[in-house]
């Protein structure tokens, strides 16, 4: 079964799964959008969860603008953005990234590709870029959530 798993299948799964995470945990409707370049965020909160197995490795990054990350955190916790500090917002973005990657892990395992996932890490800032290591494919998925942009960046190496 694993021979059917290719990078486009992974992207297709992640496209569906992000919509599910946003709808279920946040009651927010996200809509897939055509890729038109990396959105410019004044300040960005990025969650990262790595995955690794004998036949696959890589990482999932969830990029949100900082004001929208606060809205996402407030929606998940049933609070208002004003009630939340950076640690709470970071934790929510990390958890959302964990849910995205956990879903991917389950889908891969059910397709015959075992892997393990890391705990989430958070990068917060306005001017940083993530460089993939050599031989790793980099995929970008773009979503609109109201007026906000959600970016999922996936680094994948299939063995």
């Amino acid at each position: 079964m694993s021979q059917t798993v290719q990078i486009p299948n992974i992207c297709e799964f992640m496209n569906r799964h992000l919509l599910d995470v946003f709808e279920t945990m946040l009651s927010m409707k996200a809509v897939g959008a055509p890729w038109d370049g990396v959105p410019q965020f004044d300040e960005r909160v990025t969650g990262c969860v790595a995955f690794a197995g004998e036949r696959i490795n890589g990482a999932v990054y969830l990029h949100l603008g900082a004001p929208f990350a606060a809205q996402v955190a407030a929606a998940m916790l049933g609070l208002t953005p004003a009630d939340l500090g950076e640690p709470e917002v970071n934790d929510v973005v990390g958890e959302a990234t964990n849910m995205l990657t956990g879903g991917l892990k389950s889908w891969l395992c059910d397709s015959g590709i075992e892997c393990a996932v890391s705990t989430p890490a958070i990068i917060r800032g306005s001017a940083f870029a993530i460089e993939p290591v050599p031989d790793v494919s980099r995929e970008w998925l773009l979503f609109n959530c109201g007026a906000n942009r959600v970016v999922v960046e996936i680094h994948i190496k299939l063995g």
Partner: protein
Amino acid sequence: MATKILSVDDSRTIRLIVGKAFRPYDCTVLEACNGEEGLATAAREKPDLIILDVTMPVMDGVTMLTKLKEDPALKAIPVIMLTAESGRENVLLIAKLGVRDYLVKPFKEDQLIEKAGRCVTLEKRPVAAPAPTPA
């Protein structure tokens, strides 16, 4: 007496969501951020239900569950596993360890309440009477 629920998760977000979900009910929600703390809290507080994450640092949920089931004083406490991983292998593994139920993240709060309600009695908190209006 309020139902005691222990939420064991390394994510503060998930512990907050679990606490929020049970807020309308007559429950005390206790928290632990890894399996080691979870076992210690379970031994001390004897909760009526444990909501347990799988992937955690220090001691993961599978190890905590295994130790819980080996302890005669704690093994009867029902456990609902809360996991971001729904793969068949993972579900089979946790089912073999004797969990009462499991819930895959992302989840809705009412799904958690429904599953918890099958394990323990959940009674709505009485609505506080409005303060009397001064004459």
